[in-house]
């Protein structure tokens, strides 16, 4: 792995100037490295972060990646990571014109990382630097605790998709709520809710406060001296209250970190650090998974626009067209996030320029009038910049894929079914409606299950997890090992309440034709397999899993 030479770097700097002229915003400093395919194979299990902590699963991935590369060699054009400065990786020996195209693509990714609000919690620090110190921390623990560090990583990673990502983002975007003052807590909560004092006593306290406040020498402390004298527990309750406000909705990992009996022990404090490392790493990557279509679409849009206007690469338009088509062509069957995102951005740009996101347009029912509608606003460019700042894949798709977009690009949902007569798998046009297409796309998006801790039930006994019903069951193969890990971290038994789609009763095996069982069963004669949703409780105790219906 080595840094690019001065010639290539000067191409990059030229790209930066031109990209800035078009309105992209990114920090001045970037780092570009040339990597071999071997480097890439070793980096990709670490999500391209060179300094990510060592873990044996990464090694397994590297070995299987090498095996796969032997059979199916494949090199990406570029990879860019959201660090400060942003680091990107390239193949050696790219021609200059190709570098120009790739650099524009990379710069647009960096613009996206540094402006999309879903990334805001990653803006304040350099993840690569953080990762390096985490890696050293874990290496130190490993020298002390041996393979138990790896178990800790394993069990923490078993929970790392249940991190409260949206809460984290919400906290960085919305201003921090006013810190509750001691005096407010005393009058608004402590006296009224905790102590439930009579109105008479309450009014007397207010009167006492008011008199004291008028005196010249008043400080808060002089008032609270008497309070603490009367209620010695006051300060402890106040502090507890403040702390509770810090994580109004703790995710499963946070809850375990705060309340686990195992982690509370002095000698186990290292476990907490390991869990924190895993949790923060996961939080760092969350926005990337949730903005794939937008991020790739945005980068493809700008590399196309910027490349075509770049004066340095005249004469390479056909080469560009070929590579660009490979990246951004819509497949006949299947999905390509680069192509889809790019077309959607172009579409929005054009629709907004024509003023189509308006009530007038909405009220038009005539197809021809809709097609010819033009209320020039010239605000499309502004809108897509706004979208790249404020939306994620789900909102992007949900809000902007409309029938016009479907028709323009002849999009449809592809279905597959078996044709028994021809003994073939048929691909057919299942639907051309925007709603169906959105639903199909939404189903491909990253969406971890929603699982939270029931605090009240947990206080009475084992850790009680509840999986919120969203019409999907958990993968049952993974439940046991995940719960073994949670039990280890929690130190006591764990319960999980979830839903499963099960057959109402065991199916009967009936031959299609009673007299001649060799005749193939026709689909009609198949036994009715009625699936019903049932609630199950999994209990993990002493590394044994039990399951029962509730």
């Amino acid at each position, binding site marked *: 792995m080595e840094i690019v030479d001065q010639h290539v770097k000067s191409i990059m700097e030229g790209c930066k100037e031109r990209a800035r002229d078009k309105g992209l915003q990114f920090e001045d400093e970037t780092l570009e490295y040339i990597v071999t395919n071997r480097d890439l194979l070793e980096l990709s299990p670490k999500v391209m972060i060179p300094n990510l902590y060592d873990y*044996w*699963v990464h*090694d*397994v991935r*590297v070995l*299987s990646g090498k*095996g*796969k590369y*032997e*059979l*199916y060699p494949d090199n990406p054009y570029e990879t860019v990571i959201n660090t400060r400065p942003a680091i990107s990786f390239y193949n050696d020996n790219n021609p200059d014109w190709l570098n120009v195209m790739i650099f524009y693509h990379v710069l647009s990714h960096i613009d996206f990382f540094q402006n999309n609000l879903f990334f805001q919690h990653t803006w304040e620090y350099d993840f690569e630097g953080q990762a390096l110190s985490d890696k050293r921390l874990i290496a130190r623990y490993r020298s002390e605790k041996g*393979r138990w560090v790896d*178990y800790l990583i*394993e069990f923490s990673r*078993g929970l790392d998709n*249940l991190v409260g990502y949206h809460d984290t983002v919400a906290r960085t975007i919305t201003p921090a709520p006013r810190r509750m003052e001691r005096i407010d807590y005393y009058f608004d909560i402590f006296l009224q809710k905790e102590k439930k004092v009579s109105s008479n006593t309450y009014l007397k306290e207010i009167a006492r406060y008011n008199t004291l406040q008028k005196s010249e020498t008043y400080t808060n402390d002089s008032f609270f001296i008497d309070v603490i004298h009367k209620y010695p527990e006051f300060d402890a309750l106040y502090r507890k209250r403040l702390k509770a406000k810090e994580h109004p909705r703790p995710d499963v990992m946070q809850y375990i970190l705060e309340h686990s009996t195992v982690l509370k022990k002095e000698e186990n404090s290292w476990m907490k650090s390991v869990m924190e490392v895993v949790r923060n790493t996961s939080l760092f990557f969350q926005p990337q998974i949730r903005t794939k279509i937008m991020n790739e679409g945005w980068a493809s849009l700008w590399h196309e626009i910027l490349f075509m206007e770049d004066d340095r690469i005249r004469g390479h338009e056909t080469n560009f067209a070929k590579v660009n088509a490979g990246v951004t062509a819509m*497949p*006949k*069957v*299947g*999905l390509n996030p680069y192509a*889809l995102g790019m077309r959607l951005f172009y579409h929005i740009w054009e629709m907004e320029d024509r003023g189509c996101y308006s009530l007038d347009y909405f009220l038009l029912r005539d197809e021809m009038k809709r097609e010819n509608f033009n209320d020039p606003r010239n605000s499309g460019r502004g809108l897509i910049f706004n979208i790249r700042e404020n939306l994620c894949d789900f909102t992007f798709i949900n809000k902007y894929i409309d029938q016009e977009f479907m028709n323009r*690009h*002849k*999009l*449809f949902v*592809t279905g*597959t079914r*078996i044709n028994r007569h*021809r*003994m*073939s*798998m*048929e*691909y*057919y*046009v*299942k639907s*051309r409606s925007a709603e169906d297409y959105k639903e199909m*796309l939404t189903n491909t998006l990253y*969406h*971890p*299950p929603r*699982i939270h801790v029931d605090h009240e039930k947990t206080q009475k006994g084992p850790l009680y997890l509840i999986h919120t019903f969203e019409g*999907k069951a*958990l*993968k049952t*193969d*993974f*439940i046991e*090992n*995940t719960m073994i890990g949670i039990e280890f971290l929690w130190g006591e038994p764990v319960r999980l309440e979830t839903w499963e*789609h099960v057959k109402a009763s*065991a*199916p009967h*095996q009936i031959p299609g034709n009673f007299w001649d*069982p*060799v005749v*193939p069963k026709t689909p009609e004669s198949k036994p009715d397999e009625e699936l019903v949703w049932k609630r199950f409780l999994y209990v993990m105790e002493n*590394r044994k899993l039990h399951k029962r219906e509730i």
Partner: protein
Amino acid sequence: MITLDELLERDRKREEDGFKKKIRIGRIVKPGKGGREKIVVVPTTVEDKFVHDEPLVDPEGEGEPTGGTGDGEEGDVIGEAPIRPSEEEGEGEGEGPGEGGGGEHEMESNAYELGKVLSEDFQLPNLTDKGKKRTLAKFVYEMTDKHRGFGQILDKKSTLRRIVQTNIALGRVPDFYNIDTSGFIISPRDMIYRILSKEKAYESQALVFFLRDYSGSMGGKPTQTVVSQHVMIYSWLLYQYEKQVETRFVLHDTEAKEVDDFYKYYSYKVAGGTKVVSAYRLVNQLVEAENLARDYNIYVFHGTDGDDWDTQGKEAVGELETMLEYAARVGITIAEHRYTRANQTEVEKYIRASGLLEKKSTLLKLDVLKEDSDDARIIQGIKKLLS
């Protein structure tokens, strides 16, 4: 960089610490025509988390939808892919000599590695009757080797080339376009002969028939389980017989057919019903017609989900009896569906009812496992089938 052995060693330590093993030996198969597919052995692992399961897909119905672009009305078919392999596929391909061996060898060497890992790391049993019945190799004498100085037949072309070389070196060929051969010096060491030499001729010892049910009900996990087990058995036999293993692959639904390479065996599926007897009959016919029983130790491994339209199994048991007369081992694997009750599949019932498991207990083995069994269970199954 950590090696596979170190990873497996670490995995064994997990058991000491009271956790389950996590590393599986995975296989990546790349299709190739005419038995020249490549298999690369890699370790794999999954990280267990709470994740959403894929919705239950009816193996014979509608698949998961995806995106698409282009013309066509709703409902129009835009393409199709065959699910039953065509008969002509993979045949008549110009497979020239000198090329045919390479790919195959690659697969074998990797599978051999896997067999080694299985034998050593998973403590699979060693074969007891290995190599006792027949010699591994015999020798023949051929006139293929060349020798300088003496031998049986003079190789004129090589000799002449040698003489010219020597004379050029001695500076006796001043003009390449007008060579005077009469001035050549001929040394006895320049004479090249063909010489009688001893050649090893390998003889295969084991012939393995892999039979697999590829009917509609086998889709997904049962197939994966059966195929994983068969790959491992194959690899292990390869190791045990020092690569002297021949394999034949048979797929069956209501009819049986032989396919010529592992990739087809691995990947084909159809949506038909099941008649186990068809496969057994085909194996018996092949053995009879090619007189295989005389030359080989014959192993037959059959993988199915236990479904059979012939619920009594009269014919199948009959064919099985014939097979047991010549086979060194018949191993039947039943990968039960999650929803069936244990030990209630047709195949299992009629095989148990036939009493063959007791009468021929050294020859016939049955392993019944769930369709979603892990590697450890599959390997345990192999131990059972081979014990």
